[in-house]
């Protein structure tokens, strides 16, 4: 009995240690392969995203960045004819065994084009909260979310106005605020600044920097400067394969592969 108890404790301890290890790696991707019909988009990707850091995924158009991102909260299931092999672990749990709605609450997403709902700003932020009937102080949620997205100062008097009346940059930050309302652990950003002007872009980048530490952020971007400025780690995808992964400074200054070097210096599109 005693020995078994001790063993059990020991195994628990091991598990706890494992968990501790895994806390540093919020999301682990193991051997991910994605097919659209017969077309293989991602070819065996192994990748970890560390907790509380910003990881940028870069690569030329059509290399599967967005597909990879959409797999992380199972948005790929909305696309017809999309098949997937491999494992994705969120905090040690396989996301394909989870309820997709619970998963999407934990892993929020911001899209390329700002897509506020045709409702008021307040209703936009409370949409996720109302969708799961979460009981909380609505006013406080609205305020804290807007503050985190650096919008509270601009919008505190206009909360009941339509979200469609905002500028594009404000709309995109509103979308970030909206995804924060359901208390996610991970935020996926799919080229969030691609349709914004330079000023809005820098504001958006500032709010991404501000959210560092609290949320694990994964950002797909075409903009090298943005990747350098915002991210802690960089993953370079090319032709559906993971070419290089490492700390931002290392990847940009001392790339290990020729393709990475070419892409970073603008020779490879």
């Amino acid at each position: 009995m005693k020995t078994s108890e001790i063993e059990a404790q020991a195994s628990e301890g091991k598990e706890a240690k494992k968990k501790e290890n895994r806390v540093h790696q919020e999301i682990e991707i193991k051997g991910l392969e994605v097919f659209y019909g017969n077309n293989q988009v991602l070819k065996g990707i192994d990748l970890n995203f560390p907790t509380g850091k910003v990881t940028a995924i870069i690569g030329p158009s059509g290399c599967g960045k967005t597909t990879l991102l959409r797999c992380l909260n199972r948005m790929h299931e909305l696309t017809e004819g999309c098949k997937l092999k491999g494992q994705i672990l969120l905090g040690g749990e396989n996301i394909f065994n989870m309820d997709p709605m619970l998963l999407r609450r934990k892993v929020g997403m911001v899209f390329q084009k700002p897509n506020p709902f045709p409702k008021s700003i307040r209703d936009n932020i409370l949409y996720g909260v109302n969708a799961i009937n979460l009981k909380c102080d609505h006013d406080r949620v609205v305020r804290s979310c807007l503050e985190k997205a650096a919008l509270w100062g601009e919008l505190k008097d206009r909360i009941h106005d339509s979200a469609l009346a905002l500028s594009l940059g404000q709309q995109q930050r509103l979308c970030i605020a909206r995804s924060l309302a359901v208390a996610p652990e991970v935020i996926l950003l799919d080229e969030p600044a691609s349709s914004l002007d330079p000023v809005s872009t820098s504001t958006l980048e500032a709010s991404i920097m501000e959210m560092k530490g609290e949320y694990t952020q994964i950002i797909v971007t075409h903009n090298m400067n943005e990747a350098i400025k915002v991210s802690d780690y960089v993953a370079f995808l090319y032709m559906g394969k993971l070419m290089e992964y490492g700390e931002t400074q290392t990847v940009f200054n001392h790339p290990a592969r020729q393709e990475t070097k070419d892409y970073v210096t603008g020779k490879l599109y």
Partner: protein
Amino acid sequence: MNIKNATKSSSNYVNSTMNNDVRKPSRVLEKVILIITLFISGLAVLLGIFSLSLNNLEIFPVPVFGILAICLLILFLYMRHVKGKKDWKVVVFCGLSLIALILLRILPEYLYGLNINGIIHRSLISGLLLISIALPSFCFTLFYFLGASPKASDLSHYPVIILPILLMLILYGIIIVRVFQNGAPNINWHMLITPYRWQDFQQETWQNNWPQWINQSIHQTGIRNYILGTLLLMLLTSIISLPIGIAVGIYITEYSRGLLANIIKVSCSVLKSMSVFILGLTAVSLVTYSSGTFLSKIFDGYFLDANGNWHLANGSFITAALIISLLVIPIIARATEEGIRSVPLNLKEGSTALGASRQHTLFHILLPWSYPNIVTGLILGCAEAAGSLATIWFISGSGEFGVSPLSPVTSLTYFIYLCRGDYNLSFRKVEGAWEYSSALILIVITVGLSITALVLKRKLSQRQREA
């Protein structure tokens, strides 16, 4: 090379314009020729429209074609000699009008089809020829008249677009004026609030413990019940078909992508295109098969006579609404489908990415977005219900016994039919042309519905899609 060519052509252009300036064609002569041609071709188009329906205009087309051909020839010669432009279109239409002239001279007055009964009068053909030849001539004469610039070529296509619209408007105008002329003078308040009753009956009374029958008659004329019946029919139809139609639309777009969805789609379009008399027969069978069961009171409908006894009728408002719903459900389903399909994908994805369930997305994003479409579909369906006669023809009653969901069904359209058809003699005692008055009221109801739909749609879409 290209550049050289371009410069060459532009220099040519400059030369030609300069040449034109040197020649200085007389503007007045040109205008006169163009105006005459315009006038003749416009006249020919009008003549064509009228000779589609009037046989006694047949002496005109031949000379008109002749004058048109001469005018076009003069126009061509003028263009060629004075401006140096050869516009072969003009010659082609000149030749075409000459051919049409000869054809009309050759044609006998009546053309026979396969048997002697298929008769086409010559003026119909002359009308078609006039429109198809004179309208293009009018257009390119207008093009020259407006100065032969790119803008002029744009404007000169307007008559082709405007003419059919004009014809349609004229038709509408004829209908409205005719109905208004005949119907409006007869409408009065008394007629609107009195139910129609024309009954001779024996009333049972009790005197000294013995029944006595007294002959009585109620003769009152009015169309209250028909108006209320139409409104009730619209209401019941929309109550039945709105939820079902929306559900079908949602199911087709969101929940089913396989064989079943295709079957539903096909059956919807079949229902829409099916002859309404078949549905009328369905209504009859609904009434006859239910007789004797507990459903008979619902499907047959019943009314009370003067003595307070109830009798089964031919068919109730509920039956009629059910049958008309078969026509209206496809309309609403289609509208819902269109509305949901028009929702931007990124809104749907945004909702899903926030962890919202499918239902939540449906009720908070998709359906609010498609409200305007659904409203349009509903109003179209209501108009269908208000205007349908064939579906309820076999089961309609004379409307003398009140209006409630279980009363015998009746509506304005059926009343119009009764007024025109002379098999029911009692309805001929109606004074004046009441069918036109009822038609006018029907038009007012339908137009009112359409205006409501427009206003509602605009309001809903403002709330949804704009600021």
